[in-house]
């Protein structure tokens, strides 16, 4: 790979010692940068371990500490804090944090040339994190849930905002990637489903509820829960007189997170990289390139299939998956991958170009000076990491079941079920069911034990 071939004969010749010192200093800076840059994933290991170990106080304390010294991941830390607070039963505080992130991401969606330029000489972590497309939708979904766990006064607005945001994301994606982007892009079925739930609860907006459930059915085809909902709102009513409805919402399994991997530059990515570079200098992109560092999405396997629900000692239902967050993250990741690779390619070319130019300019003819420059270049490239920032404490699946039961206080047990058998004793809670009204139960099951409180709406 040839970059610079012939030094400028007219250029001023620098003293070899100066060149050597310059190259060594450059190397040192890169080494310091390499050592000093902890990845997002490594920063969050501690609090996330505490979170999954059900030590929410410890997780909160550690996240609080990280929030005081954010390294480009402030919104992600805030989201983790919001989740911890929600599961500690402080839905109001969680809602406030989620609102802050929602507003900040809205602001960060505007392009910043400064960040784009900075990321071209460092890496993608220099870009302010404005959330993956699926995360933008899920912030609003969790806002809805946080509101429902309180008085629900803003829940309707959040459901509308979720659908509105999704439309914006699809429109923008279609603008970028063409009509291959379908309406289902980054659309979790839970979003219209929650809209349907709150509209049905008005007892007079069955038409809205039907439209929302139909949309959820398109996104999660064949779900027995949604089919029953559609049937009910088409001809039936919310509940029989003297009965209320309990929605059991289970956050099951550990959700998607990003790790670093390497990817080959595709022709499509090289084309985009060429467009990026056209703004920087007269360079052409090579036909092939060594693999570049990129993030990849992973999720641990599901710990169990469903949550079993017992009411007053009688097993009556199991939750059904409404949204698979791993799939959602994967689709979002795949759609954006070409651009991520393109930016990495452009960055590599800029870095190599800068090193060759410096060597050229400073007349680094001696083998030691040349070696020092090459070492600096290698370290500069090595200091680059994939952007692994993400909302890492999301569940793998959101599951739901609707129970219509007589008004009054009931004992409801939730237990993890695999192959039709319970895996643990689960949790037992008292739930007040109100005539003609919805009550919401929210619990998080990253493993066979739930973490935090089982939240019950007021």
């Amino acid at each position, binding site marked *: 790979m040839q970059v610079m071939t*012939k030094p400028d004969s007219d250029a001023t010749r620098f003293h070899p010692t100066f060149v050597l010192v310059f190259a060594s200093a450059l190397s040192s800076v890169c080494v310091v940068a390499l050592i000093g840059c902890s990845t997002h994933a490594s920063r969050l290991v501690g609090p996330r371990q505490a979170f999954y170990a059900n030590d929410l106080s410890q997780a909160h304390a550690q996240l609080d500490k990280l929030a005081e010294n954010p390294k480009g991941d402030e919104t992600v830390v805030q989201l983790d804090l919001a989740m911890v607070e929600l599961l500690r039963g402080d839905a109001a505080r969680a809602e406030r944090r989620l609102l802050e992130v929602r507003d900040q991401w809205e602001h960060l969606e*505007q392009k910043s040339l*400064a960040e784009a330029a900075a990321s071209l*000489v460092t890496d993608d972590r220099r870009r302010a994190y404005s959330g993956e497309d699926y995360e933008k939708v899920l912030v609003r979904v969790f806002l809805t849930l946080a509101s429902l766990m309180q008085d629900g006064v803003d829940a309707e607005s959040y459901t509308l905002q979720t659908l509105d945001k999704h439309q914006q994301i699809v429109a923008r994606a279609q603008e970028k990637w063409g009509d291959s982007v379908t309406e289902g892009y980054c659309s979790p079925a839970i979003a219209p489903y929650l809209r349907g739930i709150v509209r049905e609860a008005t007892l*007079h907006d*069955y038409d809205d509820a039907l439209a929302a459930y139909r949309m959820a059915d398109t996104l999660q085809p064949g779900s027995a829960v949604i089919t029953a909902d559609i049937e009910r709102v088409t001809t039936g009513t919310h509940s029989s007189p003297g009965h209320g409805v309990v929605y059991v919402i289970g956050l099951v399994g550990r959700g998607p997170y990003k790790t670093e991997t390497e990817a080959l530059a595709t022709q499509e990515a090289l084309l985009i990289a060429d467009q990026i570079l056209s703004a920087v200098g*007269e*360079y052409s992109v090579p036909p092939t390139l060594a693999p570049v560092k990129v993030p990849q999405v992973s999720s641990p396997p599901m710990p169990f299939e469903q949550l079993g629900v017992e009411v007053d000692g009688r097993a009556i239902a199991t939750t059904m998956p409404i949204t698979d967050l791993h799939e959602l993250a994967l689709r979002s990741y795949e759609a954006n991958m070409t651009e991520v690779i393109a930016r990495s390619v452009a960055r590599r070319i800029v870095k190599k170009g800068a090193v060759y130019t410096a060597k050229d*300019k400073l007349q680094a003819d001696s083998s030691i000076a040349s070696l020092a420059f090459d070492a600096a270049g290698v370290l500069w490239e090595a200091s680059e990491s994939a952007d692994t920032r993400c909302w890492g404490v999301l569940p793998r699946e959101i599951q739901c079941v609707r129970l219509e039961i007589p008004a009054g206080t009931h004992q409801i047990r939730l237990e993890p079920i695999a192959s039709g058998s319970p895996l643990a004793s689960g949790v037992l809670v008292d739930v007040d069911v109100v005539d*003609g009204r919805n009550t919401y139960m929210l619990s998080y099951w990253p493993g066979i034990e739930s973490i935090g409180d089982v939240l019950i709406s007021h």
Partner: protein
Amino acid sequence: MTRTQSSGSQSHKLLLNVLGLGCLVASMAGCRGYQYGHLVGGDKPDMVGSHSAGGEVYKPLVEEAVARLLGTCAVTPAAAEFGPDGLPFSRRVCFVGVENKSSEELGDFKDQIYQLIDTQINRSQAFEAISRRLVDAALLETRLRPDSLLIPDNMQLFTSVLQRDGQPVDYLLYATLTSGTTERNSSSQRDYLLTLEIVDTRTGHYTKEQAELSKGYHRSPLGKLANYSIFPSAGR
């Protein structure tokens, strides 16, 4: 990577470009804008939605439909029933709700349309609207669907609950929004129709009034000119 020209001036130029990036970083910091808002005065026209209907469609539709309904149902002195104070009795209307059968989702406009109609009805001297909270309470108690209230037994049950709560009902009012779309190449015209249907709970007799508004949607800024001025009747 291949170099397009291997001259010293090229490398110099590249160095400047790369260094320029640094300057760009410094100079462009904070180039993300803020969001601003302003009040739209009552005399200013509403913003016209580019993809769907908004205030510019729904507000005039409501105004026109309600005005027509009130005009149709105006009480003539000969037909009016008068109270002991010599004033004509206002007729009590239970506004059941807005039904959306158009191709667009109403989103947050649905409740606004309800409130606009409810308020205008209530402002008229001929009618007195029953509070929505009482209507909701009756629906909750009876568990009847709004679209099933016209079944005689259901209507009887529903009005008796309201009557028991001191809210006798003379009329049930339904609002229905429908739409019809005409496509022409990359342009389309959507006709929005708001229908108000008022049903006499004693006789079952109903009166209907409508307001219609059409809106064009175009992919090109010249779409309006092409479809409505230059080639108004041209086919595909």
